[in-house]
């Protein structure tokens, strides 16, 4: 058995294991916690998030994540899900963005954010990815994201493209989606945020991108920063037509 076919069999077995667990994705625990937080009066303004507008109207969650990132006329910028949720938490609840940005990963306000993200993306599960570039700022975000995707830097000269711009590549035994193509982008963008079985952690898209940058030996991407939104835009637009399978389940 050649190492390549062995890797394929391993991939099949992992796929079977996932199918077995798919009925009960531990991400559902985060969804439940997120739903509670969505409806709980919090922050200095003691308000819920139920009027948060994610692009389809105040409080409309059905399908909202599937059309993010997008341009918002109130903030006059393109925002991804986590950026937009920070806006809502500030405007509706009075929680300063800085407090969320500065919270340690997966703790405190970030832990709340992870749960809310799980809840929101679950309301788009099974829906087609449908991100617009009609607004000039949306097209601009896409172009900036593409540039960022190919931006080589750090002591190892790594860009996102180093691992994610060709078909049938893997790092060790981990398959790498080709994020420059519709199918690859859908495989990547459509399955994160996800619950990672190996670490028992729920990872939002920001966490996934942050850990990519860590492995690329880059400095730390600031939470909610423009580069994370731009990269999200690049992947999401490439993934258009694919399916949201969020929250996903990963090794």
């Amino acid at each position, binding site marked *: 058995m050649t190492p390549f076919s062995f890797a394929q069999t391993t991939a099949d077995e992992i796929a079977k294991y996932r199918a077995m*667990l798919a*009925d*009960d994705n*531990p991400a*559902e*625990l985060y969804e*439940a*916690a997120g739903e*509670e937080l969505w409806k709980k009066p919090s922050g200095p303004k003691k308000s819920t998030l139920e009027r948060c507008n994610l692009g389809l109207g105040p409080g409309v969650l059905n399908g909202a994540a599937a059309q993010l990132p997008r341009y918002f006329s109130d903030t006059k910028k393109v925002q991804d899900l986590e950026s937009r949720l920070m806006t809502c938490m500030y405007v509706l609840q009075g929680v300063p963005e800085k407090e969320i940005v500065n919270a340690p990963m997966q703790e405190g306000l970030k832990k709340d954010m992870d749960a809310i993200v799980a809840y929101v993306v679950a309301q788009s599960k099974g829906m087609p990815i449908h991100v617009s570039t009609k607004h000039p700022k949306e097209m601009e975000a896409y172009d900036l994201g593409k540039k960022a995707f190919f931006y080589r830097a750090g002591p190892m000269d790594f860009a996102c493209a180093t691992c994610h711009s060709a078909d049938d590549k893997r790092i060790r035994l981990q398959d790498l989606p080709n994020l420059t193509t519709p199918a690859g982008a859908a495989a990547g963008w459509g399955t994160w945020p996800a619950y990672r079985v190996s670490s*028992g952690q729920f990872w939002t898209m920001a966490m996934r991108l942050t850990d990519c940058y860590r492995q690329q030996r880059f400095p730390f991407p600031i939470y909610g920063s423009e580069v994370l939104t731009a990269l999200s835009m690049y992947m999401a637009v490439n993934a258009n037509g694919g399916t949201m399978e969020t929250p996903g389940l990963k090794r």
Partner: protein
Amino acid sequence: MGDPMRIRAAENNGVVDVKILMKHDMESGQRKDASGKLIPAWFITMVNVKAQGKDVFNAEFGSAVSKDPFLNFKYKGSKGDKLLVSWIDLRGDKRTDEATVS
């Protein structure tokens, strides 16, 4: 009060298949943190499931059960059974959730 559980229970031919997802860090007490210090043990010790007020499942969990435990078992029961799932952990923290068999 611990974090909410996800409970699903479906009856088929007089047998109810119960699936429970519990949210818990389940620290074994053997892991070390980044500075080399032992992370104190903190795990669910007892799990109890009642259907229509009667015990149908009892378990003693220990340090070998991993994070966010998933439990699956069957018992003889009916649609509409009211299930009550409870756990208690090493620190005395508890959680109880209800579900109805579909």
